[in-house]
């Protein structure tokens, strides 16, 4: 790709990853035209506050514009989605009929909220999903109107955050999930049980091992949710928090290896075609990218973490600018979630953990670090109000240190460490 003329770059998706990648490209010396396409009408903004202080009303929905480096000289194409990618002509086709030629392309289209399976019920006034700023503004308005009860469907991070926000606003809230505890798929039921206890003490009506079957309206508005066991929950607001789907539909027909689980990348960050060959002109970053993680034996993962979107975007931006990174992208996965005023943070990935040890603090005090092991190695750690111990845990995970760790790594002797079952499904 020796630049004989001015090369043009396009970034599709105008979120966190897009902004950080644009900064990295400019910092690495890319000086050609750089276009950013976003289907939302807004410049890149921060999403984490949307399920927290935007819903409490402390932060206005339009106040979370992301800080960036000035002087990036970007050509913004906002409010119009990319509809199609033509790799032969090297063009991104927009929904309004325009085509943007590229020599280098970044795919950073992120995810969208998984919709309620029944589209009619999903569109009913009173039923919400939460991904973007407009979603948050609409849900905030509904909560501020003082509904008699809010039913939150799905006890992942966002569902749990929303349930806590409802309680902080004094609203009755019911949280429904088929799992045994909140966050059971990510944290396991041992640590998830602590989050559940916090929710219960906060007055959230917890319905675990339960499922919403259908949503009923009266006069077109939601009035109640019906569980599969026949229970009814009278609620004027339902928040559907069933996870996310990757925005890859626009890549259909491009010949790239992509599906609702992500677009595939190689270890460098270049996207792969359906035959597994990298396209050296195209990279992907953020929530939409699925890539082999060196820390986890090259297992292909797609992460929905703020820190990952930033770090992978910087990597991909440098790659596209021609500043070939000397190592594959291997950033330690990190995540935080604010459950009311309780901070939950994680490093590493818990998938496949066969044991968990409370390395610092204790469960009963709701202040601890849980270290997860798999086949005798440290693979992840989760802290509850105990973040200062996490960097030391991240070091153990990066080094694939033996699990359980020796006394130097924990606040008590390894022999007195209780090894628990993580309770992952």
């Amino acid at each position, binding site marked *: 790709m020796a630049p004989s003329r001015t090369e043009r770059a396009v970034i599709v998706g105008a979120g966190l990853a897009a902004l950080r990648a644009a900064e990295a490209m400019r910092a690495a010396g890319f000086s050609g035209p750089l276009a950013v396409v976003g289907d939302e009408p807004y410049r890149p903004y921060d999403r984490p506050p949307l399920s927290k202080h935007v819903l409490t009303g402390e932060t*206005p929905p339009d106040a979370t514009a992301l800080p*960036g*480096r*000035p002087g990036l000289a970007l050509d913004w194409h906002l409010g119009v989605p990319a509809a199609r990618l033509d790799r032969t002509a090297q063009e991104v086709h927009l929904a309004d009929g325009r085509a943007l030629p590229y020599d280098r392309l970044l795919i950073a289209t992120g995810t969208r909220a998984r919709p309620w399976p029944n589209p009619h019920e999903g569109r009913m006034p009173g039923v919400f999903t939460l991904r973007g700023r407009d979603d948050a503004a609409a849900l905030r308005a509904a909560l501020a109107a003082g509904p008699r009860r809010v039913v939150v469907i799905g006890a992942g991070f966002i569902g749990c955050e929303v349930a806590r926000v409802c309680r902080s606003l004094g609203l009755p809230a019911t949280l429904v999930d088929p799992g045994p505890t909140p966050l059971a798929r990510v944290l396991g039921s041992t640590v998830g049980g602590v989050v559940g206890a916090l929710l219960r003490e906060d007055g959230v009506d917890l319905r675990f091992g339960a499922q919403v079957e259908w949503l009923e309206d009266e006069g077109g508005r939601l009035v109640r949710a019906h569980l599969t066991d026949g229970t009814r929950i009278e609620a004027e607001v339902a928040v559907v928090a069933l996870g996310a789907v990757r925005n890859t539909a626009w890549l259909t027909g491009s010949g790239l290896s992509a599906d609702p689980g992500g677009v595939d990348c190689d270890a460098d960050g270049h996207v792969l075609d359906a035959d597994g060959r990298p396209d050296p002109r195209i990279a992907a970053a953020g929530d939409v990218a699925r890539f082999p993680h060196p820390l986890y034996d090259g297992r292909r993962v797609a992460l929905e973490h703020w820190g990952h979107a930033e770090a992978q975007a910087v990597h991909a931006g440098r790659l596209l600018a021609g500043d070939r990174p000397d190592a594959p992208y291997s950033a330690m996965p990190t995540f935080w979630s604010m459950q*009311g005023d*309780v*901070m939950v943070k994680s490093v590493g990935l818990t998938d496949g953990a066969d044991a968990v040890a409370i390395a610092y603090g204790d469960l009963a005090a709701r*202040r601890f670090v849980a270290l997860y092991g798999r086949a005798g190695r440290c693979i992840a750690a989760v802290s509850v109000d105990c973040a200062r111990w996490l960097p030391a845990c991240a070091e153990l995970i990066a080094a694939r240190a033996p699990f359980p760790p020796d006394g130097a790594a924990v606040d008590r002797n390894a022999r007195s460490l209780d090894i628990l079952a993580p309770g992952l499904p």
Partner: protein
Amino acid sequence: MSPPSAGSPLRVSVDLNLCQAYGQCCYAAPRHFRIDGREALFYDPAPGADARVAIERARVACPVQAIRVEDPDA
């Protein structure tokens, strides 16, 4: 959040993976940073332009450099 002031609001974000709730930002700019509970940092992502000095004080004070600021008028 902040009273209206001359100039565009600042843009602030905090990398809460890095933040260890030391609270220095809260001392440096108490109207714009707050810790709830033990370590849940709340910050104003769009402080008014008149908070420039306080926000810069907070950014510099953070021991883990978790605070990012853009002044659109700079």
